[in-house]
């Protein structure tokens, strides 16, 4: 009886398959945004838990859009909290004196260096070149404005359509098209300037 009553809900296997398929990309999306592996893992885990707890009874086909919306909201919440925290930290630092040198040394490539080190054993020329290309592309993705990056990744990497991307981002479909177009244009220029041939 339960099978007929609960029809339409995502089964455990469907949710498992979905999470397996999306977890790595979700992590990379979060890393592009927050630039910290541990924070990105926390955000992805929160998003997974919320999806399962709040929308575990939704049909499987709704999971991608719901998950992306939750993840984007989690990332935005993280930045909102940081903004408040940074306000007080800045205020406190201003009272204590000039900030230390370590505060000014943020390196956007730092998160990729550890990854590169873990792959050091496979150091053939092609492998290195491929990894280098991936790293450069990821750097340029990371440098895109937030909304452009979100639109580009959701639309092309997550393969959501325009309507789904708009729903996940909480904006109009026209905005999605604009963000995607600008992101693609900026990315092409940036990669060309770094030696890629389009």
């Amino acid at each position, binding site marked *: 009886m339960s099978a007929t009553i609960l029809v339409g809900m995502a089964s455990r296997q469907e949710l498992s398959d979905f999470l*397996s398929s999306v977890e790595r990309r979700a992590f990379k999306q979060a890393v592009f945004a927050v630039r910290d592996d541990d924070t990105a*893992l926390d955000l992805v*885990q929160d998003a997974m838990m919320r*999806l399962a707890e709040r929308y*575990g009874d939704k049909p499987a086909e709704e999971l991608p859009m719901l998950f992306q919306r939750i993840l984007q909201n989690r990332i935005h919440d993280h930045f909102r909290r940081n903004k408040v925290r940074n306000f007080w930290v800045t205020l406190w630092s201003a009272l204590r004196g000039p900030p230390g040198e370590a505060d000014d040394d943020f390196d956007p490539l730092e998160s990729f260096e550890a990854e590169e080190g873990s792959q050091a054993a496979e150091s053939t020329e092609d492998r290195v070149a*491929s990894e*280098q290309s991936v790293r450069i592309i990821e750097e340029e993705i990371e440098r895109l404005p937030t909304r452009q990056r979100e639109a580009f990744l959701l639309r092309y*990497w997550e393969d959501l359509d325009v309507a789904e991307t708009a729903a996940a981002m909480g904006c109009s479909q026209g905005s999605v098209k604009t963000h995607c177009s600008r992101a693609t244009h900026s990315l092409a220029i940036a990669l060309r300037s770094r030696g*890629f041939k389009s």
Partner: protein
Amino acid sequence: MTNHSFRPAPPAPTSSYAPPAIGPTRPARSARTTDAFTRSVVRALDAGAERLPYRVTHRLQLASQAALAAQTAVLETVEASVFATVNAGSGARAGYDQPSLPWRLLVTLLPLAAIIAGFVAIADIGDALEADETAEIDEAVLTDEVPIAAYADHGFGVFLKNNRP
């Protein structure tokens, strides 16, 4: 500066980008991503996602397991509530687990009847008290030496008012 290329052929003399194939869990991308440049970027992103360190993939796996456990709890709750609803409906039809109609009527009407009886009793007591007061006034008037018609006379009223102690 290294010379990278999105084009698979011909091979560039220097390093060229040839991202590995996407893993088996990744479904075939739909036709809506048609731009060659975008496809190349997406392949690079897929390649980067495939090369995550074990620490990250293990943590992601644990997160997935925790989410699946949470979903199982949600489904069990939903299933239990559905069964409870179904059982309650069938029980009512079969006459099980539900009091009979006379009992339900009795339980519903008894408090209502008690409230109505209370109102009636209050009204009766109020009428009786009012009748007693009227009788006392009538008795006082009838036992007085002054005739009752004198109270209707205007001059007698003035007299009483002026001689009030």
